């Protein structure tokens, strides 16, 4: 069969019948490719020992149902999760992070059904906080969004395999994304708490520093923010605002939530100005946005209301249209290598999906007033 570029039927999808056993001597990597269980990269052939070790790390009970994964609504048991984790190349000790991430993704407010099926390119971004990062050897530093670390790469890949295999998000079938993005292979980082002058993200949201959490956002790819000239908070954050203020990221037209990842050098300069998380998020919110008229061709196509944006946005030509409806919808992290004056803006899908922060191994917010960097919000 010759390749017909652009046709969706050249993408593999699993056939409906259950797999017969493979004959001794079979090339299992090719066997799994033929079954259509892969994301396109070779799978690690699972063995009974590896699956058992991963199920044990998840707490045993292989048949325990964790979630049903849309849009196929396949049952994700601990054993099925373990199979996908082994296939992705995960070590057993990554299990609690992957399990927490899947539980977060399947909370109704995340709307995984929509995230999987949309024509937009969004893919779940996972950010891990707390001691779990170090315990499993995650990379929060140099090349944090890139390749080279087993935990980051295979945890993100395990999520994608579950979304494909259990959730049925096969491109062209139930995943209708026009373009997709490279994070659909793996999109998993850790916050660089050690290099950050700010409180960790999960502490800002009420968890204790010794707790570990997963944060999931349906997200576009990171957009680099270069700034090598500013030596104060406002100067650097103005560059982040510029990256945020394009008329065609999905937040600009569909509101929702976004993420900003400050590189450690930028974070250090901002902190030297005495700014805290609260100040940074409010500045970004107040000084980003688009002119309403710029969003819709300056009247060329008639008057546009856009029901995707909050009713309280002023729909007048010169009005500022915020990128997201509130400073609380900007999720701020510090990550990356200690050298380099770079940050990143990561747009979200929009109001159709709410991000989820969830404790690993049952961790819950400590309760009481939220105090970060000496500021308490009651």
């Amino acid at each position, binding site marked *: 069969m010759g390749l017909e570029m652009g046709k969706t039927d050249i993408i593999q999808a699993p056939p409906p019948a259950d797999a017969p056993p493979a004959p001794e001597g079979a090339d299992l990597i090719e066997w799994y490719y033929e079954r259509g269980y892969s994301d396109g990269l070779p799978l690690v052939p699972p063995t009974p020992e590896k699956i058992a070790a991963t199920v044990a790390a998840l707490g045993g009970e292989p048949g325990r149902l964790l979630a049903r994964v849309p849009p196929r609504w*396949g049952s994700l048991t601990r054993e099925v999760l373990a199979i996908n984790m082994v296939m992705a190349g995960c070590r057993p000790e990554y299990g609690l992070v992957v399990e927490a991430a899947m539980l977060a993704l399947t909370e109704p407010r995340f709307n995984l059904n*929509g995230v999987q099926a949309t024509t937009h390119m969004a893919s779940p971004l996972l950010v891990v906080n707390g001691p779990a990062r170090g315990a499993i050897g995650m990379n929060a530093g140099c090349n944090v969004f890139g390749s080279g670390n087993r935990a980051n790469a295979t945890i993100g890949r395990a999520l994608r395999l579950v979304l494909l*295999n259990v959730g049925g998000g096969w491109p062209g079938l139930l995943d209708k994304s026009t373009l997709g993005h490279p994070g659909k292979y793996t999109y998993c980082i850790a916050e660089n708490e050690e290099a950050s002058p700010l409180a960790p993200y999960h502490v800002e949201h009420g968890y204790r520093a010794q707790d570990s959490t997963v944060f999931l956002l349906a997200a576009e790819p990171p957009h680099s923010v270069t700034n090598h000239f500013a030596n104060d908070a406002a100067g650097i954050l103005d560059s982040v605002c510029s990256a945020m203020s394009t008329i065609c990221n999905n937040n600009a037209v569909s509101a929702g939530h976004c993420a900003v990842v400050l590189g450690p050098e930028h974070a250090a300069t901002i902190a030297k100005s005495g700014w805290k998380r609260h100040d940074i998020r409010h500045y970004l919110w107040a000084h980003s946005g688009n002119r309403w008229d710029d969003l819709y061709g300056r009247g060329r196509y008639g008057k546009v209301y856009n029901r995707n944006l909050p009713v309280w946005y002023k729909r007048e030509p010169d009005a500022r249209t915020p990128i997201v409806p509130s400073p609380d919808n900007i999720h701020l992290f510090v990550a990356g290598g200690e050298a380099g004056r770079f940050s990143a803006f990561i747009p979200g899908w929009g109001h159709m999906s709410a991000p989820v922060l969830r404790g690993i191994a049952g961790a819950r917010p400590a309760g009481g007033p939220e105090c970060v960097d000496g500021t308490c919000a009651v």
Partner: protein
Amino acid sequence: MNKSIPVYDPRGVVEAAPLSTAPRVTTLAGLRLALLDNTKWNANKLLRGLRDRLARKHALGAVNYYRKESFAAAAAPELLAEIAAANDIVLTAIGD
């Protein structure tokens, strides 16, 4: 003797009973038509245009217009039940 290697299916079980589709109607005369708007930008324009064309060509019994809460989420079960109870046929559309 042929030995085999254990292999694993990573897909998990789908616990849902398959439903058959309703029989196709042969005439629209006298039928109650539901229009389900998914609330995307142009869905209402598309559906209202289709409604007008259908109404010109067929003696529909009734036309009822419904809207989903969000284009990105499934219609609420109560809305689906209401549509099923009050209509014979349903037309839905997205319109980006």
